[in-house]
Each structure stands twice: as C-alpha cells, then as structure tokens.
C-alpha cells in the first residue's frame, strides 16, 4: 500500500490548486453574494479540460482517472463550493452516465461536446415527491411513434438553467417485480431548447448560491426515440450507478470545503491575539485544530480510496465501489459540517461576517450532507452492504 501520490497526480493537484487560487478564489465572495453563475470561470475550466477529466481522449476528454477528477473538485471547493459542484454535477451526473450507458452515436453527439466543455451537463432525478425514493416518481414518458413524450417536473436541479444537456429519469411504464406492480423507470437525454422543456422556480439557497438550482418542467416535451439512454426500464440502475460515482464528487467537494476552512482557521489563530497571545497558543485551540485536521485527513483518505476503487472498476467491472463511495460521502460531509462550524467558532465574531468566508463555507458544507443521498441514505447503503 502506497499513500504517496504519483508525480502525475501531484502535478495535477498543483495545477488545480493554482487555477483555484488565481481564477476561482477572487470571485468566490461575489458569486455567493450575487448568486451569479460563474460562466467565465466555467469557460476557462472548459479551455483547460476540467470538464472532461475522466473521459477517454477519443471522446474529447483528458483520459485521466477518477482520482484526478476528485482532486480537481477538492481543490476548487477549497476556495468555492459553488464551482466545485458545477464540475461535479456536470461530470459525475451527466457525462458519466452517457459515457457508461450511451450508444456510440449518443457518445459522439453528446459526450464529445460535454467532455470538451462546449456544453454543460445536468441530471434530473429528484421530484417534489420523489428524491431518494425513486418509486415516488411522477414524471412520465410515453412512446408515441418515433418520439418519447415527457410530462412532469424535476426539482433542485444543479446547473439547472445553465446546462445544455440533461439526463432525465421518467416512468416509462409498469412492470411486475416479485408479484408487485412497480414503476418502470427509464433514462433519457433532453437538450435545452426542446419544445415543451422549460424552467420553473430558481431556488434561493442557503449555500452553493451561484450554482443555478432550478425546477425543470416538461409539458408534452417530445424527444427522439433515440434519446433513450441505456435500455428501457433500466433507469433505476442507471440512476444508482450514477449516484455511486456522484457521491465521490460530492465527497471531494465536502473534503475541499473542510480543507479550506481548516486552512483559514490555522492562519487566523496564528494572528488573532487575546489576553496577550495568539489564540493558537491556547491549548484548547490547539486540541480543536488537531481534531479538525485529523478528521479532514481521514476524510481525504476515504475519498481518494473511493476514487481509486472507481478507477479499478473502470478496468474490471466486477469491482464494486458503491460502499466506499457512500462511506467517503457520509464521512467527508459530516467532517465538512463539523470543521466549518468550528472554523466559524474560532474566528469568533469575525467568523460570522461574510468577508471572512468561513461562514460561507459553513453554509456550503450543509448541502453535502443532503444532496446525492442524505447522510441517512449513505448509512442505509453502507449497512445494506454489510448485511447482504
């Protein structure tokens, strides 16, 4: 077992760090304040291949492994949680299912421009009455000649109005499973601009405020028959596969947020003086910092392990990484919440002020315990793996 990053990975990390410091960090406060989607940053990331990191070169990607991708999300999130999730939702939730389940024609049509960053991707599974419980899904897809007709809505969709290509899940019929009638779920690719596909409410969020979270509305939205992704009725499996990978992205986002807050706190306690000495010289501060750093490091090891396991899966599909991804997401998200909360505490009154940024990190951290499967769902996934 080797805990040393390869030279390539170490250099990739320095690239992401350099980019994040120069291009992302200076805009983080403004993006949060104005809720403005950082389109210019996304265009720069596209230029340097950040939107197609784990995609093979023949499809316009960078041909790198999931670890490189996770490090990218980590470093971006260290300075801006919004930018981290834009890359994560695009790559894990839209690029990955098209890369994994798409036909060659679909890959040429959508994967290539997505990987090159010419187009941005999003993923629509959640509905007002169905998040984790996919059987509660109401959006319907009916085959009419050579077209599927979609009706329904999706909510809380990251990259909502800014994306060009959407992977959408809908009920395409009913099937009998173990004597019970169940909803048959299928996956589709829908392009922005398709008649009948519009946007509803923009969500006014606590954190990741620049990430463009919208409701998607489908009213007699007709898409070509060939936009079915994977086999009909396999939508649930596609969604679960996608979320397994997505959890690594969100775990990396949570990890980055925790690391960012920890870095800020270390800098601050060295400078802030109370009772004649820097607050970092008080044993309580030192012990708290030690705990924050230890947990953040443990989260990093879990995230990297899950990413490397996904890399193994890409070489050998018999390898499973779902449990590792769930553990990484569960732990990193909870560590992010704990570390950012303490970071605010150790900044005292200044921690509550926006320009000190740790309060933003605390607001950004909270969502990592909720989206792409709440912490409770991660515990269900992990225990199901243990008890099977």
């Amino acid at each position, binding site marked *: 077992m080797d805990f040393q990053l390869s*030279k*390539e990975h170490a*250099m*990739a990390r320095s*690239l992401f760090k*350099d*980019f994040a410091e*120069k291009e992302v960090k200076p805009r983080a406060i403004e993006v949060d304040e104005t809720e403005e989607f950082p389109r210019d940053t996304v265009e720069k990331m596209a230029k*340097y*291949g*950040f939107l197609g*990191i784990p995609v093979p*070169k023949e499809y316009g*990607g*960078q*041909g*790198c492994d999931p670890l*490189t991708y996770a490090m*990218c999300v980590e470093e971006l999130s260290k300075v801006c949680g919004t930018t981290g999730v834009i890359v994560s939702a695009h790559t894990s939730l839209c690029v990955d299912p098209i890369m994994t389940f798409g036909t060659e024609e679909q890959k040429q049509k959508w994967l290539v421009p997505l990987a090159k960053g010419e187009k941005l991707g999003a993923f629509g599974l959640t509905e007002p009455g169905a998040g984790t419980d996919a059987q509660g899904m109401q959006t319907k897809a009916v085959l009419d000649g050579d077209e599927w007709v979609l009706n329904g809505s999706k909510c809380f969709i990251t990259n909502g109005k800014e994306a060009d290509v959407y992977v959408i899940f809908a009920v395409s019929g009913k099937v009998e499973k173990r004597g019970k009638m169940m909803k048959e779920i299928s996956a589709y690719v829908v392009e922005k601009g398709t008649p009948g596909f519009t946007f509803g409410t923009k969500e006014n969020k606590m954190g990741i405020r620049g990430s463009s979270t919208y409701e998607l509305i489908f009213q007699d939205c007709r898409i070509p028959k060939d936009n079915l992704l994977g086999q009909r009725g396999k939508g649930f499996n596609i969604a679960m596969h996608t979320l397994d990978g997505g959890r690594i992205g969100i775990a990396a986002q949570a990890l980055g947020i925790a690391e960012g807050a920890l870095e800020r706190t270390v800098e601050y306690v060295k400078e802030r003086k109370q009772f004649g000495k820097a607050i970092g010289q008080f044993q309580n501060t030192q012990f708290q910092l030690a705990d924050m750093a230890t947990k953040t490091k443990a989260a990093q090891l879990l995230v990297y392990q899950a990413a490397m396991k996904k890399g193994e899966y890409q070489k050998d599909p018999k390898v499973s990484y779902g449990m590792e991804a769930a553990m990484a997401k569960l732990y990193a998200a909870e560590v992010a919440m704990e570390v950012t909360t303490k970071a605010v505490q150790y900044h005292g009154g200044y921690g509550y002020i926006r320009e000190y940024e740790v309060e933003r990190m605390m607001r950004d951290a909270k969502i990592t315990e909720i989206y792409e499967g709440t912490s409770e769902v991660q515990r269900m996934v992990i225990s199901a793996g243990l008890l099977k």
Partner: protein
Amino acid sequence: MKIVVCVKQVPDTKGGVKFKPDGTLDRGAMLAIMNPDDKAGLEAALKIKKENPGTEVTVVTMGLPKADDVLREALAMGADKAVLVTDRVLGGADTWATSQTLAGAIRNLEYDLVITGRQAIDGDTAQVGPQISERLDLPLVSYAEEIKIEGDSVVVKRQFEDRYHMLKVKMPCLITALAELGEDMYMTPGGIFDAYQTEVTVCGRKDLKDVTDDNLGLNGSPTKIAKASDRVAKGAGEKVVPDSPKEAVDYIVGKLAEKHVI
C-alpha cells in the same frame, strides 16, 4: 517554425526565502517553480504555436536531474520536446558558464527563434539571455512585452524606462521575455499524464557543441561569491513629533550633520 525556450527551475520565494548556515540558498527547503519570466516566454511561444500551425516548441533547461519537473510542466502546457542539460561538471556555473552551456545545447537544435526569460528570480542578473545571443551570434531584443510573427521576422514591443520601442527583427533571433509577454496559461490534466510519457532528451558535457571545458561549471565561472547574507532588516527608526516646521528642519539638519551627510 521552430522555437527554443530556455526555462529555469527556481525556488518559490512566495513561501519565504530559506538560507543554509553558510548564507547560500537552501534550495532543498523551498518549493521549486518555473521561473516566472521564463514561463511568460513559454506562454508566448505556445501562443505563436497556436496561431501558426506546424510550429514546434522545444524547452531547454540546465540544472539538477530534478529540473526534469519543470520540463514536464512545460510539456503539459503544450511544448513538443524537452531537453535537460545536467552534468556534475556543469554545477556552480555563473551566467558566463550557464550561457556557454545552454548555447552548447542549443547548437544541436534547429531554431528560428530562441526565447528566454528576462531574468530569474533567484539570481536576478538578466545576463543569460543576452549572453546566449552573443554565443550563438543572434540578434537580440530584450525586455519584450509583445511579439508578433510577420513572415520571416518578429515584431517586438520592447519596454523601455519611459517609452517602448517597436522593432522588427529578422529570424533567427533571440528575445528575452518580460512577465507581460505571457498570458496566464495552465497545463491540462491529460497533458500532465502525457508529459510523463514523453521522452526528455538528457544531455551531459559530452553532448555540448563547440564549448571548451574552461568555460564550464564552477571552474569556468569568473564570478566568485565571497559572501552571501540575508538582507539586514531595517530597524523601526526614530519617531519625532516636532512642534513647528523650524524645529523639524533643525532636527533633520542636525541628524544629517551628525551622520556626516552634510
């Protein structure tokens, strides 16, 4: 078109400068980066490559074997080839010996344009680029802040103290780059992995062309460092609040006389 860019691995001074007890730079204790002016030169070369398809960019560095890192970075940014000049006998070189060495390596390469950074942040001499041009008998334009290829010539905007000069130079020539010449350019993730698959040409003393031993390494360096020391920090000074301008003038004049300035 073929462009050779000289790059140097230098200690990153952002995290503070660290010295050994003898006063010399403790390079091992500092992170290493590509010298910023050299990076600007590389960025300019890569921009020319983008605008002029078929252009080949070769990066050359002289240094310890670990200077390989800076070449990989250049390859990951889009350079085509890389040459590492490394040999124990080349160690301890001053600008004279360094330019002899680099010129000896560049003589083995084809080039229309050679670009170096104006100066490195560790030595700050700004001598190596101009010296290479002398050794290779190339026209030199230093302090370039903009360059444009026009046929077989380069049009260079050269920075001057209170103005700039526009010069048109026929290639082959050598240009030294200011930071302004570059546009922030990054590696690509895939480029990094490819860079480590690319073969770097490693040269030693025997591969240098038309260079004599007495011009190389520490022995070939006319510059001898007698002593190196950290900059002495200025004291806090003396704060005086005089009651009138006359009192202030008297005080300053008195101090200047005391120090024999006037």
